[in-house]
């Protein structure tokens, strides 16, 4: 059994009237890459803020590493970057990382190595305030990696970056993921999550809409696109199928959703037995983006 790194149980956060996080429960297991998806203001950052000890919860529980450690001790084994990179502008990259080492209680031996990983070794003596946003974000990643963390938490790591910057950050994330580090990635960028994550949590208005594997989310709602010479007969026949959920017509094609899993061959057989012959049959899976929009627009 893989070990649990973080478990969140019925977490709630209210800011006055606004209920920012509603009954969020979640288990993070070692070795997986998790994505938290949600539009802006859906409670992603608040949830992360709570487990990272900067936002106070209203109710609920969370525990790191099975509850064996106090939160701030556990955070020494976690690497996290939130929203924007926060460092002392008047210190150099190296000095900033050394300060993080002091806080985490580790020695300075990893500083150069991690600056190398994010490609900032040449600028290690430059002051933080002279860095571009992309460099600041990479320094934040270096800082989060300093302790070789059990889990890396990234909140919108590519926000505000140019295409090169986004690409660099993604490469770094992929590299880290390939080394078996558990990652929790909050983002509203769907392709980012789809490309990197194995599990996904979808939030809207602080509520969980979906929690499970990315494949599960994408595969769950497969639908059929059908076409026959006699469209009316096709529609009438398919409506009598016992598992039918929804039938609609667009651009001469009939879109069919089933409640349960129906195999394409079974469907074809079912229709031909009732003398409906198809000239077009496609099984379509929703992309994560369509799936996400479908979920969040309900």
């Amino acid at each position, binding site marked *: 059994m893989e070990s649990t790194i973080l478990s969140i149980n019925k977490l709630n956060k209210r800011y006055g009237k606004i209920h920012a996080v509603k009954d969020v429960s979640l288990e993070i297991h070692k070795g997986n890459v998790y994505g938290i998806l949600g539009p802006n203001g859906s409670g992603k950052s608040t949830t992360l803020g709570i487990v990272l*000890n*900067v936002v106070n919860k209203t109710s609920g529980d969370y525990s790191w590493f099975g509850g064996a450690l106090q939160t701030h001790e556990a955070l020494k084994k976690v690497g996290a970057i939130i929203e924007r990179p*926060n460092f002392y502008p008047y210190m150099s990259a190296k000095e900033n990382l050394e300060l993080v080492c002091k806080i*985490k209680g580790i020695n300075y031996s990893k500083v150069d190595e991690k600056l190398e990983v994010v490609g900032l070794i040449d600028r290690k003596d430059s002051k933080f305030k002279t860095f571009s946003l992309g460099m600041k974000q990479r320094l934040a990643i270096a800082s989060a990696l300093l302790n070789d963390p059990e889990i890396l938490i990234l909140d919108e790591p590519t926000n505000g970056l140019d295409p090169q910057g986004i690409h660099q950050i993604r490469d770094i994330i992929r590299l880290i993921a390939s080394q078996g580090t558990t990652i929790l990635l909050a983002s509203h960028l769907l392709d980012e999550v789809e490309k990197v994550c194995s599990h996904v949590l979808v939030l809207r208005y602080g509520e969980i809409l979906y929690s499970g594997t990315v494949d599960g989310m994408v595969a769950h709602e497969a639908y059929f696109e059908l076409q026959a010479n006699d469209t009316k007969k096709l529609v009438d026949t398919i409506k009598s199928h016992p598992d039918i959920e929804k039938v609609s017509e667009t651009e001469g094609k009939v879109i069919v959703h089933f409640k349960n899993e129906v195999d394409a061959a079974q469907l074809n057989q079912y229709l031909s037995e009732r003398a409906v012959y198809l000239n077009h049959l496609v099984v379509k899976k929703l992309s994560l983006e369509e799936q996400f929009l479908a979920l969040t627009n309900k």
Partner: protein
Amino acid sequence: MKRLISIELQKIWKNRASKILTIGYFVILSFIALIASIKFDIGNFKIHFAEMGIFNFPFIWHFNTWVASFLKFFLAIVIVSMMANEYSYGTLKQNLIDGMSKKEFILSKFLTVVLFALGSTVFIFVMSLILGYSFSSYTEFSIVFSDMEYLLAYFVKLLGFFSFCLFLGVLIKRSAFAIGFLFIWFLIEKISYGILKFEVFNRNPKVDDFYAFMPLESMSNLVVEPFTRLSVIKNIQTAVGENNIKDYDVHFSSLLIVLVWSAIFIFSSYKIIKKRDL
């Protein structure tokens, strides 16, 4: 504890403005020695401070700690900005995420405050010792090391004042506003005292007793002004017929009041950080 101090000193020492202010503070402190060279020669009337006895043991402990406490505003700026910067850089949040507890965070700030107060006290101690041995008429061991409670009072005074500054930094989050508020608070204490004492209660001494509990007033009560204690001034006072018996001692009750204020400030800072969503 060493870890927390080293974290905090790095934050202050790498900041150029804080570094210059801190160095400037100690340099200007040592300028107290220059008072020794002040000489006025107006015809027959001669004033030479060093020869007037201000550097005599044990009076020098009282004189130097009183003068030195004026310079505390230098370090007050450093302390307020070291706290306010943590908010504006977002590093308070980052420090917590990196694994510092909120308690450790406040503790590291408090230790810095203690270190500043202690550093100033030791500095004044050494400087007064040197000045005293150079100019004092009495250098017997028992006289040199009498009245040392002024150093303790000086230390507690700085501790209380810096804790107040730290608290304002935590509460207000912006250094300029925090220092502005400190000044306004000072005015509030002084003006309300004036109104109560001279207008409302008709010079009732109970007003003084009450104001001895106010934060800034209690700090300034720790070391009262030393000038009227000088024999020269005393002679003048007797000559003009004023016979004011003033109490120059350091009182245990004043020490206690300031220590209680320091504890309140530090504890409230912790409560604020704990309660706030950062």
